[in-house]
């Protein structure tokens, strides 16, 4: 008994240390973003700034075109993630509900592209987009990431677990494949669609290296690149404004995460642990 009490205490200490490790840095960003400029450079630091100020955000907006960054990120993320989800859905449906010669070979062929690291595609994709005259355009930003292989894989696995009878019943009804897909199969795949959709949104929003090379004017940058730009214009020490910029980049995905973390976890661990 006593042994187990001691053990509990130690476990809670470990839990507190773990919580602090991840929460304190995040708290530090958010509190610094609303700190008065003089408080930023105070030592020892002011952990509970009061009153809260928003002037850091104004300064970030003045130093860099954050309106453009925000609009670009919203456009690239919404269109890119929609295309990804559409591609994943259509392909998964085709592979599970339609016949085609050698379709399993075709499936493996598509899956094999997961082995291609983006470091290897970087140079050639840049050349391809340049040849299409799409450098510094939304088309160039979005198109190369609009395919979805991982999402296709997750959705296919999910669709294969749906009861076969539904398929048959709809066939008897003579439902066309598009009606079948949208009215029968997709409503049943909702949880997995959320998973694939959310992962696509996070990927598009956070993407860094591709937007960095494919855009070349400040106005076309997305938020993560904009943050890099802000830091270089604000120098290394105007941390209030830079932390405000960091909040703008991080907060939308943090909020999305808080609502959908189970969906994200399920999708991302799917490859890891097979039941």
């Amino acid at each position, binding site marked *: 008994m006593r042994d187990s009490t001691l053990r509990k205490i130690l476990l809670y200490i470990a839990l507190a240390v773990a919580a602090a490790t991840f929460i304190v840095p995040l708290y530090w960003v958010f509190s610094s973003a609303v700190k008065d400029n003089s408080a930023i450079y105070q030592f020892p630091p002011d952990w509970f700034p009061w009153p809260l100020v928003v002037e850091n955000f104004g300064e970030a907006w003045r130093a860099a075109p954050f309106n453009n960054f925000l609009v670009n990120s919203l456009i690239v993320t919404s269109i890119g993630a929609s295309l990804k989800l559409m591609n994943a859905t259509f392909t998964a449906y085709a592979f599970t509900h339609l016949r085609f010669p050698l379709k399993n070979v075709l499936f493996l062929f598509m899956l094999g592209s997961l082995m291609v690291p983006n470091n*290897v595609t970087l140079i050639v994709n840049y050349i391809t987009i340049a040849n299409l005259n799409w450098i510094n355009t939304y088309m160039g930003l979005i198109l190369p990431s609009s395919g979805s292989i991982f999402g296709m894989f997750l959705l296919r696995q999910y669709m294969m677990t749906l009861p076969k009878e539904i398929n048959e019943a709809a066939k008897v009804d003579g439902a066309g494949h598009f009606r079948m897909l949208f009215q029968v199969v997709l409503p049943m795949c909702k949880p997995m669609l959320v998973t694939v959709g959310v992962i696509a949104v996070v990927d598009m929003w956070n993407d860094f290296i591709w937007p960095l090379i494919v855009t070349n004017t400040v106005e076309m940058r997305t938020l993560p690149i904009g943050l890099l730009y802000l830091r270089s214009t604000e120098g290394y020490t105007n941390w209030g404004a830079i932390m405000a910029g*960091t909040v703008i980049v991080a907060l939308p995905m943090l909020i999305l995460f808080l609502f959908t973390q189970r969906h994200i976890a399920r999708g991302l661990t799917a490859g890891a642990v097979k039941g």
Partner: protein
Amino acid sequence: MPDPIERRRGRRRRNRREYGVFALLILPNIAMVLTFEYWPVLYNAYLSMTRWNMISGSPVWVGLKNYINLFTSSQFHQVLLNTLVFGGFVVIGSVLIGLALAVLINQKLHLRGIVRTAAFAPYVISGAAVATLWLFIFDPNYGLSRVVFSWFGASSPHWTTDSAWAMPALIIAYLWKGTGFVAIVYLAGLQGLPEEYDEAARIDGAGRWTIFRRITLPLLSPVTFFVMVITMIGTFQAYDLIAVMTNGGPGIATTTLSWFVYERAFKASDAGGGAAAAVVLFFILLALTALQNAYSQRKVHYQ
């Protein structure tokens, strides 16, 4: 009753229509895969044997010259070493901390859900934002680093501008961002373990530590191997951390293979050199993945 020939013709027509719908549905996705995944592999291999500045003219065939240049340059040796150090420490750190976190969260403790959420959250934050946050923490004058070092009566190192400290800074930031995900993977693994072994061992009088070391750990080994490979692959994508925190420097102290590819091609306008380095990177990843496959096929611990 329709005659058999009519019926067969009907089936063939139906088949043809079904093939048509199939092709229509997969066409956009397969076009993307061919254009932006497979074609680059081939063309990149060709580019790696050419000299080209990517701007004007066209690639000039130089054979294996780019590869010879790479492997005879001491700078490239340093880059390979950096890649190994960065990847190695991140992999070891991820496995140790991730597993410890998972075991901790797997205990029946109050508020463990909060810790799981907090640990996993940095994984979905943009790497650029995480890097900026850590840049502030590592600021020797105004960052938290100064506070922590002052507890020990020391002054903070100049993390990102000191070649001895820049790599540790990157590794810490990467671990902070990625370890929560590793913990989630381990947690799924732990919760999928059969409980009979545990119970049997406990009845035999085995202690917690023995059970963990002799039963849990071996049962988790496929997960561990998976974690090691995906973490290693993940370190090859850490452009955002490197771009924001160190820019590959000071000097080339934090230039990894993937950053080297970017620098050669897009900063030094040396498409051939960049492409050759990308091929080297590709083969390293292929070898790692093959290793994982071979291992998980030989040693699957699940029933």
